[in-house]
């Protein structure tokens, strides 16, 4: 039975990672077409760093992910603090609205924002993408922070006030440290979601601006540049290494304590 379980997990793992393995292999493929193996090469990794358009799209993707995650984290944190003090019904309404972008289809969210920007006469480009990403990121941040907020003991906050701390000091010294893990995971979640988004960006970007996703989509018909495979391999391996480092770090501390 144990053996069967292991096989099952391994099969699912294979299913999830087969395409990723394929992309990594393709990034070393000397032939430009996907379907033929032309020998091993690292030339795509070299030419990647000379490809202005890909690097530009990468920069745009990272910039939007960073800015939108930061803005969403700040707005999300403030509104969690505010929601915690709301009457039950008001809070329920606001949470309901918060859930809309998560439950609704991305295509509908994208279209609705596109219609909004058009009727406001906004120029489509960096600004519209950023506004859209902040909008779909805030709910993830709120969802990550709210559980920590519920665990927070309000008496501690009141004690800080009694002892002479201002609201601002009490927030930064007492409440924020307790919320920090939620805020961090909210930020990371928002960053990842922004990075991986295609659909909403597709509808809210203007001509002449591209994130990696929209660039790949326009390349689908012409054929993907192999440099894209090289880039995604680099990103993937970087994150893999970072994750291992982060996961390994606390264990060492525990060992040291023991």
């Amino acid at each position, binding site marked *: 039975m144990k053996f069967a*379980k292991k096989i*099952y*997990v391994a099969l*699912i*793992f294979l*299913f*999830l*990672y*087969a*395409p*990723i393995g*394929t*992309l990594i292999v*393709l990034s070393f493929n000397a032939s430009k077409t*996907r*379907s033929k193996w032309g020998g091993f090469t690292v030339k795509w990794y070299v030419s990647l760093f000379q490809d202005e358009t890909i690097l530009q799209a990468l920069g745009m993707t990272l910039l939007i992910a960073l800015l939108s995650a930061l803005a969403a984290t700040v707005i*999300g944190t*403030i*509104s969690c*603090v*505010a*929601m915690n*003090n*709301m009457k039950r019904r008001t809070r329920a309404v*606001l949470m309901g*609205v918060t859930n809309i*972008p998560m*439950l*609704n*289809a*991305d*295509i*509908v*969210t994208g*279209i609705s*924002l596109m*219609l*909004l920007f058009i*009727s406001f006469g906004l120029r489509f480009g960096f600004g519209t993408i950023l*506004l*859209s990403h902040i*909008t779909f990121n805030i709910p993830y941040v709120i969802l990550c922070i709210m559980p920590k907020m519920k665990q927070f003991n309000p008496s501690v906050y009141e004690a800080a006030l009694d002892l002479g701390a201002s*609201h601002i000091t009490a927030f930064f010294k007492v409440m924020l440290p307790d919320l920090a893990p939620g805020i961090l995971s909210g930020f990371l979640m928002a960053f*990842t979601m922004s*990075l*991986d988004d*295609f*659909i909403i960006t597709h*509808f809210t970007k203007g001509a002449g601006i591209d994130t990696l*996703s929209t660039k*790949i*989509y326009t390349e689908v018909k012409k054929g*993907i540049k192999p440099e894209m495979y090289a880039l*995604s391999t680099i*990103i*993937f391996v970087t*994150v*893999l290494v970072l*994750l291992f480092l982060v*996961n390994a770090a606390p264990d060492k501390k525990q060992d040291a304590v023991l």
Partner: protein
Amino acid sequence: MKYKKNILAAPYVLWSALFIIIPLCMIFYYGLTDKSGAFTMENILAIASVGHAKALWRSLLLSLISTILCFLLAYPLAMILAGKKGNQTGFIILIFILPMWMNFLLRTLAWQTLLEKTGVINGILSFLGLPPLRIINTSYAIVLGMVYNFLPFMVLPLYNALAKIDENIINAAKDLGANKIQTFFRIILPLSVPGIISGVTMVFVPALTTFVISTLLGGSKVLLIGNVIEQEFTQASNWHLGSGLSIVLMIFIIINMLVTALLEKE
């Protein structure tokens, strides 16, 4: 103090009104008017035209099949993971969140390479002397793409629900003479319903509304309702029709929410 704190809510209340509520109202406005701005139901009734109805039906069918497949694949996996001792969250994140860092368009495209006539999978099959798989550019490939992309959304809530079940309840059932199958159907399955509901919603809605997976793996031969709407906005520039069809799509999303909410109550 209360007053001060309510001011804190202002940025988000404004933001959500401006970027969530008003945009939704705009879809309803466009969907319920024609080009001259007069009220019409035509954009919504357009769903009944042969091409649109077919696309909607196909979307419903494929997303339903994908949801069921995701559930059947994810449940045993979530049980295995939940049954392991200690906190498995790190491992689960590694398995399911990590792929997200490789662009999902590229990952889906990679299935083309794997599934092609002369692709990797057929290479392995012919090596083993088995008949080749011809599913690229068909509905089967789209289902596979949906299951591949949305499986994590099923596993995570199921795992969360299953990991919460108190071991003592299961042991009590066993003590009272229930066998494994009885324990599963009468204890584990009912207790995991909240996880099933959020998993089903998180798979069904994106699968129903996708236009990317069908474009990448369906070879633009298989049109889903998402493709129809996307084309109305980006190619035909008929926002009224596109909005009308989006309203229909939202109706199905709401139906799905109502059904799951009812199931949860029971």
